[in-house]
């Protein structure tokens, strides 16, 4: 019967790839929503310490970051350095940095500005204390010691 007559080619039918792009786009949007774009390139190595009583930082837009750690490249020395935005900085630069961060925000939001300190766990407290003193002087009292959630006590 003519209805059951096979066609000439016996190869597999091609898979329809039209919906493939839709699936990938869905992935794309998923990742775009759950991730945040890295804003700064770190020149220093920051491995934050672990702690158990950590809280989530709320309102990402109201957080300014201070990084402290040992430079990744040996030519910048082996002692702990401060990084603000995309460059190395000294303790004296912190006040100006905070002022800039404040000016970039709305008048109403300025009080809510939090300073998140991402500090390598090998860092000595001396430099951290200096930074904290500067923050006190400029009036940035809300701080956050960045830490990863995990078991802190290894002993």
């Amino acid at each position, binding site marked *: 019967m003519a209805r059951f007559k096979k066609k000439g080619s016996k190869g597999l039918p091609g898979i329809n*790839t*039209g919906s*493939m*792009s839709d699936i*990938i*786009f869905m*992935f*794309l949007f998923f*990742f*775009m929503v*759950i*991730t*945040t*774009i*890295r804003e700064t390139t770190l020149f220093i190595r920051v491995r*934050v*310490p672990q*702690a*158990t*009583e*950590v*809280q*989530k*930082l709320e309102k*990402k837009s109201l*957080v300014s970051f201070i990084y402290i750690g040992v430079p990744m490249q040996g030519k910048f020395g082996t*002692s702990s350095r401060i990084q603000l935005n995309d460059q190395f900085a000294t303790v004296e630069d912190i006040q100006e940095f905070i002022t800039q961060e404040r000016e970039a925000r709305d008048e109403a939001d300025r009080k809510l500005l*939090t300073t*998140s*300190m991402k*500090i*390598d*766990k*090998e*860092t*000595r*407290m*001396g430099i*951290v*204390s200096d930074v*904290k003193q500067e*923050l*006190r*002087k400029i*009036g*940035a*009292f*809300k*701080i*956050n*010691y*960045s*830490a*990863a*959630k995990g078991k*802190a*006590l290894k*002993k």
Partner: protein
Amino acid sequence: MPRKSPELNTGSMADISFLLLTFFLLTSSINTDMGITRRLPPPLDPSVKPPEIKQRNIFTVLINQNNKLLVENAPSDITLLKIQAKEFLSNPGNDPNLPEMEMKDIPYIGRILLPKNAVISLKNDRGTSYDMYVQVQDELTKAINEIRDDLSMEKFGVRFSQLTDENYIEAVKTAIPITISEAEPENVGGQ
């Protein structure tokens, strides 16, 4: 009958979206920022004398440059710190060496016995490692959080972290504030 328009070749569309996907995967980071939140004290006014606090109301924690702890003038260990801090902050037996207790009226909670002005004084050396410092802060926070949990369990039946009513959270926070005072750091061990 209108002529059928030729179909677009959508095969490369997937490639393009894959490229976009990899681009976003590389330039973004998933990690959410977590950390221990603290409030720094305002700068000291040199003309104002610091208030006198009775010795029994202060819980001193010192960390030296070798990351060793001295708690209440006795060597201690990080594993014991939480228990010591908890004992100090709750003063269960109304010990005269532990902080003075006082009946306080807290909205939503009522009258309860709380430390009058117990303060944890934390002092570190410039040579202390940051890891140790965060661990000490973590243990102290844990002690406070556990006391808050106990109070919340007793009064509201749920743990502090599971409280949803803003008023209740505020009430527990007022009853048990985070009173960690940091002294100016000392420089004994050098940088």
